[in-house]
């Protein structure tokens, strides 16, 4: 599994993430926010640490863009919805592309887990059960909610239902981002968010 992932072509995937025009500064905010949320979802579900992201960056030959924890933290802090701590607010296209490739790489690695969570979600809905009652889903929803509330600046705290809704939508998104074309899909979705 690792070997086959290592056979990937980061350069080719990088080239897939092209943009015809650069989004405006305001629209970039949406990209930064959505990208951060996707990463939080992946962290909450698979327990992915910064170290895992940095290792992924290295495997994908992206360590020139994201070399260390500090850089990674600053990129994450670029999400305008984050509680401000004086961190860097900019995220350029190269950095966004790198994060997209890293996220999708990690999603591919954890595709089984994401798939299992989606399956559980389908089953709980089919059985008219609340999703958070399922062990895996419950843990995911709690972790996502806690992380979101801890890191995001909100004028008013979001309700649990809204947070759960957000978490579950991101979970479904993640299964698509874990596919071979995932990086292109995420990139196009981010560009859609930027409009």
């Amino acid at each position: 599994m690792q070997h086959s992932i290592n056979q990937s072509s980061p350069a080719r995937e990088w080239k897939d993430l092209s943009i015809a025009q650069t989004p405006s500064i305001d629209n970039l905010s949406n990209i930064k926010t959505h990208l951060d949320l996707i990463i939080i979802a992946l962290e909450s579900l698979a327990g992915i640490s910064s170290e895992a992201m940095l290792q992924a960056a290295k495997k994908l030959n992206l360590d020139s863009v994201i070399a260390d924890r500090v850089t990674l933290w600053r990129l994450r802090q670029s999400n305008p919805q984050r509680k401000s701590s004086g961190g860097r607010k900019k995220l350029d296209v190269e950095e966004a592309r790198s994060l997209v490739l890293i996220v999708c790489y990690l999603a591919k690695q954890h595709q089984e887990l994401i798939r299992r969570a989606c399956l559980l979600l389908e089953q709980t809905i089919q059985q008219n059960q609340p999703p958070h009652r399922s062990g895996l889903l419950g843990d995911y929803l709690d972790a996502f909610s806690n992380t979101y509330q801890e890191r995001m600046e909100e004028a008013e705290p979001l309700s649990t239902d809204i947070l759960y809704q957000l978490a579950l939508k991101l979970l479904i998104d993640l299964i698509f981002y874990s596919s071979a074309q995932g990086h292109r899909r995420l990139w196009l979705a981010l560009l859609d968010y930027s409009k």
Partner: protein
Amino acid sequence: MLSVIRRYTPPTCTLEIKVKNSPLSRWLRRPSLKQFRFELRFDDPRKAQDKPVTISGDRAQLEQLADMVNTYVQEFLALPANSLSLTGGSAKAISSSNFQEISAASTSTPSLKPRGLVAHELFFGSLATETSGQVIKLSALQLFDLTTALDECTADLATLPQGAPRSAPAALNTSGSLRDRFATLKTVPVWSAAIASLLLMAVGIIVLGVGIIKQRSLQTSPLASNQEQDSDSKERKTIDVLPPVAPQSSSTAKPSLKVPSSLSSQANLPPPPPVEPPQLSTRITDKSERKAISVAPNSPKKTSPSLSPLANSDPASTKTRSSSPSSSRIVTKLPSLPPLLPESSTSLQKREQAPVPTVSDSLASGNLNQSESNSTTALNNIPQLAEVQQYLKQRWNPPEDLSRTLQYRLIINPNGSIERIIPLGDASKIYLDRTGIPLKGEQFVSILEKKQQLKIRVLLAPEGIVQTFLE
């Protein structure tokens, strides 16, 4: 009888590609290009069903279905979280402008509609049968699996001209990557199959003649042998770059029937070359440049990478398949279609087959560094092909971030104007306005001799090479 040449098996559905296996195709050891059919079975093991819902259609319908699913998924991913309820029964309805809607059961175009966060309805449209019904409900995972199968299939088909891929059964195993399976894909346009059969007879005669010449030259002087080697080198170069039509029109085609022996030494084709991004190391750059060279006579081994075409346009797909074997039931058998290169190199060495597969490999890969004079010679038969090629060659300015060959199907009216431009593949759609292809209705080429539409396949390579072929 239709033979399955490709099978994609994510957990909850199976997509098969079939082509007709005629006696000629069996003799030529490659599938006929006629009667391309796909069959899609929704065989989710979680669902108790006597017979899985199955739909089928031709290539155009498959591409239409794939395009629709791809667009739908992208729209779904861009939806805000609060657009969809969990169950689909809440008041938060989806804006109908976001998704394809069907207004009546008679709509022929397949479409998808969300029914909440984890449920979708796939309306079969013209693909519906009595047994399949008009609609099927898909869960999120079923939609994902369908998307995965269609992605992989589309990636394979997008690199091929109008025709079916040939498979390498020896490379098809449960542990093989998708890339390896397509490592020996060849492509033969429909018309070249007939030409190839005539060529086989010519090849036998030529081989005999060349053999005699060689014997004589060896008897004469060493210099003559060297010259022969040089001409062999040139022939190898010619082989790898001439399009399939070449043998008919080019006098250099005959000697080009020889096959480099180095090709036979290749057991497996390496993965497609990476493309250099701005900040990646030169190591990758060099690697991609080396692999982009299709046939330097002094480095015959390099031909192999170029023969591994963009059939697998996204190498990530191979990772997915082999990285999550538990989520894929794995794949394809295709044994009735023996591989051509490198496994079939022995037959090529016997010079019993035309070099068409080799040529079309280079063609499909788009990694040609051959001078265009050879290809132009081959196109002289149909003046419009050369006109299109020349027209686009002057205007084609590959974007820096382009890594794959763009393919378009142009339908030319008898009066020489463009009737329709069909981009094949996502990249082609994205870069259409950068290609220099004129607008629909604009006078493009000279008036056609025959009063019927002409279908031309255009390949625009990132290296700047433009190729045109009849479809």
